[in-house]
């Protein structure tokens, strides 16, 4: 908990009262710690807006490049828009993931977090929820953006469900792998290489499922993808929960 002040020195005084007000609901100390870490990341981001701004600009540029490079007509858009959506979410998400633990390590606050008397997995879920929130914000903005620019209504409940499920799987395994890649010599290049193959099954399922939903196909066309995504999420969360302790032990 002491690490809170170390991340952003300016928040040190405000940290204690704000946290007590905001995080009253968690049942146990474990979830209290998870919420505290996630909230710390969110608040640091709200104050600096460093990451979210670059992610949003990146998103805008990627969408522009896609529409220029693919020269999509209205028919082609219908089938490719979910691909554009997911590729952009993954690339923008990678920016956030690689910063998330790298900034902790560079400022030395990672040691503080590791010294805190909380379960290591609480640290993992805190970081993961923080990352997930950033990715979801990007995804929401992106969906609005694509709806406007491609003239296809992407904001549908089922699509939102797919986006949430896909983002959970992506950020879970992404947080685990980024906590490994921060120790590497060339961390910026290593994270995408490590993450892409593991996250591809999720991206494929999400793209296929989203396309089926978007083209208003019957439920047997998209339901298997939702199930597959759900299964992958459960597997990745369980694996990360079991393995994160080994990644951060020093």
């Amino acid at each position, binding site marked *: 908990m002491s690490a809170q002040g170390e991340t952003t020195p300016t928040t040190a005084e405000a940290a204690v009262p704000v946290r007590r007000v905001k995080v009253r609901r968690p049942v146990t100390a474990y979830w209290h710690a998870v919420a505290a870490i996630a909230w710390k990341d969110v608040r640091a981001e709200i104050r600096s807006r460093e990451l979210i701004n670059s992610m949003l600009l990146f998103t805008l540029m990627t969408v522009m490049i896609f529409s220029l490079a693919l020269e999509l007509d209205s028919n082609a858009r219908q089938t490719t828009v979910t691909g554009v959506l997911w590729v952009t979410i993954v690339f923008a998400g990678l920016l956030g993931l690689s910063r998330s633990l790298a900034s902790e390590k560079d400022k030395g606050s990672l040691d503080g977090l590791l010294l805190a008397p909380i379960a290591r997995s609480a640290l993992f879920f805190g970081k993961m929820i923080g990352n997930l929130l950033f990715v979801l914000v990007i995804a929401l903005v992106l969906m609005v953006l694509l709806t406007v620019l491609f003239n296809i209504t992407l904001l549908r409940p089922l699509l939102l469900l797919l986006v949430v499920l896909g983002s959970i799987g992506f950020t879970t395994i992404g947080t*685990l792998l980024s906590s490994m890649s921060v*120790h590497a010599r060339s961390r910026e290049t*290593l994270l995408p290489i490590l993450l*892409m193959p593991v996250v*591809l099954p999720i991206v494929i399922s999400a793209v296929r499922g989203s396309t089926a939903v978007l083209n208003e196909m019957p439920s047997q066309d998209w339901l298997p993808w939702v199930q597959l995504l759900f299964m992958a999420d459960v*597997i990745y969360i369980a694996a990360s929960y079991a*393995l994160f302790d*080994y*990644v951060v032990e020093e």
Partner: protein
Amino acid sequence: MAYSEKRTKILMGLTYAAAVLFVLAMLMNFFYVGPERQQGEAQRIFYVHLSSFLGSFLAFGAAVVAGIAYLRSRNPKWDTLGHSAVEIGLGFSTITIVTGMAWARPIWNTWWTWDPRLTSVTIMWLAYAAYMMLRTGIEDPERRRRFAAVYAIVAFASVLYTIIIIRVRPDTIHPVVAGPTQAEPEGSFEVSGRIRDTLFFNMFTFTVITVVLVWHRIRLENFSERVARRKMEVLADL
């Protein structure tokens, strides 16, 4: 610690056995078994194709076991096994992909298609290639072993994905040999006796080859460690 005489002898014996088995398997593929009814001569490559996938599956499975064992015991020998197994598995999965492409050209009339099975095997190959990149990227040896063990366990998801995908996806054109498919939910293994004999013999041969290669790779790793230690000793004496 010198490599024991006895173990070297066993390994050499196994190596010769694997060579003989391989020649026998190839002879069976070309002369014992006849051309398949629908696919003709092109089907002969299938024995190597499936068996090399079995080899990579065994190797990647060994890497998972080694990863778990390393994380529990922290004995570096498990890491050597994991590293060696992934290298050999990567080689075998390359053989699987190349033989598959050679088969697909006459049968599907294309070298490559983005079929679910082909996609998933590519993902598997990429995941283990990333494992090698991870190993070269981390400098601290203890941390490298730990991270490699973790990633070997995570990457095995791609192997399972490859095996499961053609059994759940109805739109794949990749044939399913054993176990239930969407088309035939009961599962079937209707092949002639000779095809079955050849297939099982090839699978056995490739299992032996996998074990031999992994063993050789571990031995090589131990030797290179010994050389490095000697070098340090000599440098310390100077």
